[in-house]
């Protein structure tokens, strides 16, 4: 995956590019809005990670210009500003995701991964999602494992759908809070773990092969065995 990083803090930029390279991605780093915009306009990237506050041209203007020029490359906005209004502004300018500093690298990685693959697998087309012997009927809103219906509460269904749409990819707790509850904040107690373990009870209990895994220090992953 080719990632364009536009970040003026060289230490953060190095931390990002080193981490992404270790995971096997290719990175280009620019420290100003002008250089970053030029690189973005040249194209060829799968994901752009951009800081909101940049010298010369600010991050949101860079995104707006890219969008105006017809570039659809997914953009992840990094910002020290965490207020809801700032978030709204970031997404309105054409950003696809918003991450507040400081962040865990695993969180960033999971989100970049989700953004990069979004373009390849359009959502909402299928009427059925399948992973191994787990089936999700999007029309009837029911789940079956090994042919047997798994009774799910509405919220559990939505959590499972979120996982099924991201097979084999890390889903963090904050991604679940944002994607399923539409919460942009972390509740004081880690309530997500309890929800996920309940879902796991329902879909994995009594089966030899577990599908819903915990990824240490990052989140969860739903994946077929093998």
């Amino acid at each position, binding site marked *: 995956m080719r990632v364009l990083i536009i970040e003026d803090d060289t230490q953060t930029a190095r931390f990002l590019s080193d981490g992404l390279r270790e995971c096997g991605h290719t990175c280009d780093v620019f420290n100003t809005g002008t250089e970053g915009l030029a690189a973005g306009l040249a194209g060829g990237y799968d994901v752009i990670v951009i800081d909101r506050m940049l010298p010369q041209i600010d991050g949101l203007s860079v995104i707006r210009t890219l969008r105006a020029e017809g570039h659809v490359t997914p953009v992840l906005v990094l910002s020290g500003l*965490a*207020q*809801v*209004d700032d*978030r*709204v*502004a970031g997404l309105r300018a054409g950003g696809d995701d918003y991450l*507040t500093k*400081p962040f*865990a690298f695993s969180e960033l990685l999971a989100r970049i991964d989700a953004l990069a693959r979004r373009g390849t697998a359009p959502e909402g087309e299928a009427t059925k999602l399948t992973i191994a012997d787990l089936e999700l009927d999007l029309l009837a809103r029911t789940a079956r494992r090994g042919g047997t219906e798994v009774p799910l509460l509405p*919220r559990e269904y939505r959590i499972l759908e979120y996982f099924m749409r991201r097979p084999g990819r890390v889903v963090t707790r904050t991604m679940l809070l944002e994607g399923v*509850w539409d*919460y*942009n*904040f*972390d*509740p*004081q*107690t880690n*309530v997500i773990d*309890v*929800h996920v373990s*309940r879902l796991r009870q329902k879909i994995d209990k009594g089966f030899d092969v577990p599908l819903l895994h915990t990824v240490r220090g990052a989140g969860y992953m739903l994946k077929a065995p093998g």
Partner: protein
Amino acid sequence: MKRPGAIWRTTAVRLAAVYTALFCLGLGLGLGALYFGTIGVIERQRAATLEAEVRALSERFREGGTARLVRAIDARTAPDARGDAVYLLVTPQGRRISGNLTAWPVEAATEGPISFGVSKRDGEQITQREVRALAFNLPRGYRLLVGRDNEELEEFRNRFLSVSLWIALGAVILGLVSGLLLGRRVLGRVARAAEAGEGISAGQFERRVPVSGRDDEFDRLAVSVNGMLDRIEGLMQGMRIATDSISHDVRRPLTRARAELELALRRDPGDAQAAMLRSLSEIDRATGLLGHLLDIARAEAGVQGDSWSTLDLASIADDAVELYQPIAEERGVTLVAETRSARMRGEAQLLAQALTNLLDNALKYAPAADGRVAVDVRPGVDGQVSVSVRDNGPGIPEKQRDAVTERFVRLDAARGGEGSGLGLSLVRAVARLHGGTLAFGDNMPGVVARMTLPTGLPATGSHAK
């Protein structure tokens, strides 16, 4: 604080002085017009009277000659007759026949109106008087002079002048005294406001500008200034909580992380991994605390932004309850919600965060065995909605409840728990951002936390009355 002469510097007194001067000028013009108008009327009346009298007397002369005329003049100049009348009848040679003038005045050479001075004896006093007269030639060379002295006019003039003087004096005194009183009142109220401001500058942040209750311009000013001061005090309180919490709660995990790393550096490398993991979690803890503090500071300083919308507090509460339901069950606490649709304008994320904080808090203190937490949302009266979260935990002693509402940092200590108490600070900040309040009451046993918020929506006809 009061300086001598300060009252003359006030706008109100200067205005009063200017208005008094203008009023006096207007009064003077009015009185002048009245004076000259009245004088004119009196003059014309006198001229008409003289003409009428001359006509009447010449009629007598034609009917009965000099004898008849002399009788008439004598009757009119009798001692009991009006004192201001002047008559004189002379022969063609200029000799006096009758009348109360001693000689024909030199000014009255021809026929027509004249005026001349006479000296009049009034007992011992001799006064100079001006006489307006009409000279008339009778047949056969006799000449008649009929006049009126200006005593009446003088009297009018004197009375008018003295009355005018009193009126002007009264107007000036009234204007200045009322101006002075008004100025003193205005100056007093401004001075009290200024004193409040000086007190606040000197550090007495609870001081406010007094409101008289008369609902006038000064009250409006005082109310708006006080509103501003309340806001500033709220912001300062938020700052105080933030700095207190930074110094206690954020420093602690950072101190621990630092100590861990330092120790690991000294010890053998095998421990490094574990130390780094522990440090990381401490740093995450500090980051989380900072995030909460920033949330609070923003909510405290906040205004309505793009992210505000019309929402249903009930569905926000239902979502939060649903989020916490599994954890409640895990802890053996019954979590129930009774929500009725309560529409309002607000910031959904912050309200949801406030509700999860209230739930978090209630679940933390509800007893594990037969704990019970109840959430209810209801549309209230007067354009308000309320959400309350009750638990049956140890509760807060009533004495401490007020203190707790003042400084949320101490709530956890009051309930015998640990933690920063920032969760409730955020709830209060969110309540205030929405123009509402957060209050704690006794649930017997336990605590009921109630957030009351204005809907911010125009009242609908069906709900009114």
